[in-house]
Every structure is written in C-alpha cells, then in structure tokens.
C-alpha cells in the first residue's frame, strides 16, 4: 500500500501533447477514478504510473520514492488490462502464479498464495481451466487475482469493465469495490464511463486534452462543477448563458436567475450556469408564482418515458432544457403544453465561460 503522487508530468508524442503539466495525489488506500473522453490523456497517465512509458518532465512518486525512470518490471504495480491479457497458453492457476514464479518464490508458497487470491475473487474451483474456457466476468476476476497476488503497492485498472455487458458490469463494479476494500490497496481506475466513476471511486479526476480539469469527491464534482465540460461530462446538465449580476446571471431575454452564493471571486461579464435535470420541477403554467426560486416559462416539446422516471425536453427562448422527473403517479404533462420550470438557487452553479 502506498501513496502515489504525480507531479508536473508532461508527455508529448511528436507535436501532440498527451499530458500537459498534470499533478495529482492519489491517497493511500483510496479508489481514484481518472475520467475523461478518449484522447484526454488518461491512459497515457496510467502508463506513466505503471512504467510502460516515461514522462518527458515531472516526477512520479510511489511510497515516497521517485520512480519516473524505473521500468514497469522493477516497480511494484498490479495492472488489469482492458482485454484482461491473460496468457492463453497457461491455466488459470499458472496465470495467477506467473508474477510470483518470475520472482523466484518457492512452489509451496506460490500454491498457497494463488489459492488465496483465487478464493478472494471467488474462482477457487477453476484453477485448471484455460482462459478461453472462461466467461468474460471470470476472465476479469482472474486478471484481478493475477494483479493482486504479487501484493503490489498500487493497483492500476485500464477500463477493466468496458468489455463486459451491462448487467455483468454492475455486478463487477460491486465486486471490484469489495475486493479493493478487502485488500486496502491504492487503486487508480481509468474510465470514460461517468457512472462507473461516480459509483466506484472516492475521488475523481477529470482529464481533458492532457490537462486535469477538476478533481474531488464524486459529490463535490457533481455538485460544484467548475466548467461546462466538467458539468456535462460528469452527469447531465443544462447550461444557461448570460451576463453576471449581483445575485447570479441575467439571461439573454432579461430573466434573472439566482445562483448559489459563491465563495469564489465575483464573476463579471459573460458567464453561464449549470442546473442538473433532476433538480428542476415542472409546474403547470397556471401555478401561482412561488416566492423563492428561479422560474422559467417554457413549452414541453417531448417526453421520454423510462419506467421509474421521465425525461422532459422543454423549449424556451430557442434552447432545450432537460428535466428528469421521478414517476410517482402524478399526471404527466403533454407535449406542446405550456409549463413553468422552477428550481432553487442552491441547485444553480455559476460557471466561468
């Protein structure tokens, strides 16, 4: 177990800056998700931490030691690959034993460690199978057992769930989290799936074009996005644009929107604000004006029913606003119906554009 720190790491491939002065501290024993679209540099960063590739500048510190020039085989890392990369010519047992056997651990000790690792991932009875005889979820578990059996200082996961189908993915999310807690290992998890990042990690770092855009706990980032990108990449958000005012923002048509009081420096000029679709309430146009909260009049253009909830698309002033409504037996609004949207200033985050 160890704390991992990345300090001012940059890496270019030709003219392309894959990583641009990235600094992140990965807490000891924590589960950290590196989230970003493809090409954001998240996998490049993972490969620097693993030691497959070295940064052009900056430091990588694992457990207090600078390792930025140490090749992967000399670092103590465990890695789970996107396609698992199980050795096809070896049984499950031999796959898991590989890391121990190349280190010259005795046979007797290997057998015990491998059994413990396979039990941990609940594959105790499948040691003799070959990788091609396993299901996707089972391969995933073997890859995980193989990575943790060497007791690495840090566990690196490169989109490990993306090859699984949806139902299995949810199971594996829970399973992965359980194993990570049980082993207590510092884990860095690369994903482009915001839901995975939200449900599994205790910290998230959002990357974009080789830079760290924002980091924090899932709640922090979800509730206080600092940019339109962070707001829309992690979860869904309606972005309203306008001019900064004393209390919030004035939209193009003059409507005043109150935002959460911000401890940041007061903003001036063109700004925008983000509102999550589930924070907005739809009222009939005839509803009495509420004294508190933001109000916007609009017209329902579309409703998508999804069982437990419905998504409304509301047109106002040339913009479509998404509203998520839990289905609790209320009468749905019709398409084309004039309505009023309300939400609290607390749910409105001011964002610099």
């Amino acid at each position: 177990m160890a704390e991992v720190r990345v300090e001012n790491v940059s890496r270019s491939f030709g003219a392309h800056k894959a990583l641009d002065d990235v600094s992140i501290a990965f807490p000891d024993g924590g589960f950290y998700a590196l989230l970003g679209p493809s090409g954001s540099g998240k996998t490049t960063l993972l490969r620097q931490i693993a030691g497959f590739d070295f940064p052009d500048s900056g430091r990588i510190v694992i457990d207090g030691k600078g390792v930025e020039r140490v090749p992967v085989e000399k670092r103590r890392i465990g890695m789970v690959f996107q396609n698992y990369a199980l050795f096809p010519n070896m049984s499950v047992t031999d796959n898991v034993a590989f890391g121990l056997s190349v280190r010259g651990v005795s046979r007797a000790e290997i057998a015990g460690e491998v059994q413990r690792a396979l039990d941990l991932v609940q594959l105790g009875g499948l040691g003799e199978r070959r990788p091609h005889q396993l299901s996707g979820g089972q391969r995933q578990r073997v890859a995980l057992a193989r990575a943790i059996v060497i007791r690495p200082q840090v566990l690196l996961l490169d989109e490990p769930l993306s090859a699984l189908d949806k139902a299995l993915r949810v199971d594996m999310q829970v399973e992965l989290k359980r194993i990570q807690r049980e082993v207590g290992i510092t884990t860095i998890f690369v994903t482009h799936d915001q839901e995975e990042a939200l449900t599994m990690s205790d910290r998230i770092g959002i990357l974009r074009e080789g830079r760290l855009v924002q980091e924090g706990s899932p709640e922090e980032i979800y509730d206080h996005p600092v940019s339109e990108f962070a707001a829309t990449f992690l979860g869904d958000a309606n972005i309203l644009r306008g001019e900064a005012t004393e209390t919030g923002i004035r939209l193009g048509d003059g409507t005043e929107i109150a935002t959460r009081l911000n401890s940041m420096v007061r903003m001036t000029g063109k700004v925008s604000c983000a509102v999550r679709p589930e924070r907005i309430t739809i009222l009939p146009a005839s509803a009495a004006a509420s004294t508190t909260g933001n109000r916007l009049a609009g017209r329902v253009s579309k409703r998508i029913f999804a069982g437990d909830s419905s998504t409304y698309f509301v047109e106002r002033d040339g913009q479509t606003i998404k509203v998520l409504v839990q289905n609790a037996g209320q009468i749905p609004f019709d398409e084309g119906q004039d309505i009023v949207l309300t939400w609290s200033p607390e749910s409105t985050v001011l964002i610099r554009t």
Partner: protein
Amino acid sequence: MKLTGWLEGVGRFYVGLLLAFLYLPIVIMALMSFNASPFYQLPFEWTTHWYSDLSRNNQLLTATLNSLRIAVMTTVIATILGTAASIALYRYDFRGKRILQVLLFPPIAIPWLITGTAMLIFFYGIGIGRGLHAILLGHVALALPYVIVVVSARLQTFAPELEEAARSLGASQWQVTRRVTLPWIMPGVIAGALFAFAVSFDQFVVSYFLATPGQGTLPVEIYAAIRKGFTPEINAVSTIIIVVSMGLMLVTARFFKFGGDR
C-alpha cells in the same frame, strides 16, 4: 442441384489429376528402386540390389550425411536468428526498420542461380572460398528470410498487451520472451524451421556453386552421378529420403496444427 453435382465431379477430377501429377512420378521412382532392370524395363522384378549397392556407394552416402548435417545446422541457426529478428522487429521501433523489412523479401524472389553466382564471387573475394562451410553460410542466408516471414506472420496474431502484462508482473525481458512470447509463436517457429530445412535440403544451385569436388551435398552428387550415367541407386537414395521427410512432416503436422489457434 444438377449443375453443382456436375461441378463437384469436375472438382474431384481436378484434385485427382493434381495428386496424380504430384505423386505418380514419385511412386514410379520408388517402385523402380525395387526393379531389377536398370533401364526401367518391365515386367517388374523385385530386388533390393540397388539398396545394397547404395550402402557401398561412399560418395552418395557421404553426400547424404553432408546434406543432413548442413540442413540441420541451417535449420538451427536460421530458426534461432530468424525468430530473434522477428521478435525484435515486432517489439522495437528503430530507424530504418521499414527499409530492413522490405529488404527481407527480394532474396526470396531473386533466382537462386544469381544469388549463387553472387555468393561465389563474394565468398572468393573475402577469402571464405568454397566448401561445406561456405554452403552452410549460403544456406543460412537463403533460409533466414523464410523464417522471418513465417514467424512474423504468427506474431501478427500476438497481442502486445500480453508482453506488457508479463512485464507488469515483474518478468524480465528474457522471462517475457521465454514464457509468454515463444509459447505463442511456437507453431510459427516450427513452420519456419521446416521451411529452413526444406530450403537447405532441397538446395541445388547455390550448393553446386559453393561445393568443392568430392565434398558436395546430395543434390549436387546426384546431379554429378546422373551426368556420368544414371544408376537406380539414385532411385534408392531418393526413396529413403522421401520416406524419412514425409514421416517427419506427418509427425510435425500431428503435433502442431498449422493455420489455426490452439
């Protein structure tokens, strides 16, 4: 239905014809090695006379041993060098890699007659001269591109993450190669080795140029013997070689399924 049945008939006939053209001469030669008449005269009269003659023909026996020795050494050297080169070409990017890869192919296409002449002149020029050592050197050079092409083709199906996974588990470069890469490409290595053996064992032109009198390989000595006058001993030695090499192929094919993943 009727048409496809007809086409199938044509197909079968064609395959039959193909096999006949391939194997009939060999079968006839094998039969004649047991025929008493040295002039292929019928009726067939069983004898093992030519085989006992062969066992006393030191020239052909020495040549057979030479051929086998050179073929085995060529196979070992070319397979090791070629496999190592293929892995290096797969694993590393370096200046001139593309040019090197492209330059590997022409030797396969250049007529052996020209390669042989060139080698003779070159070997003389730098003092290697002629002889079995020169033949071995020439055969290794001829076989190497075949091994590289075959092993590289197999490596194309190898996922680079496997090497990365092995390294992440603490394996050294050599451990990665021996325990992960080699087991995967082994069918390609075996196929490459067979090619190398065949290129060397079949080789006439280059061997002919580089051989010194009395120290030739089997094809060179057979050619020399035929020029002096054909004897059915040559049928006998050819039959033995065919039986041995076909046996070798069948055994190898049984243990390594080519063309498919295990």
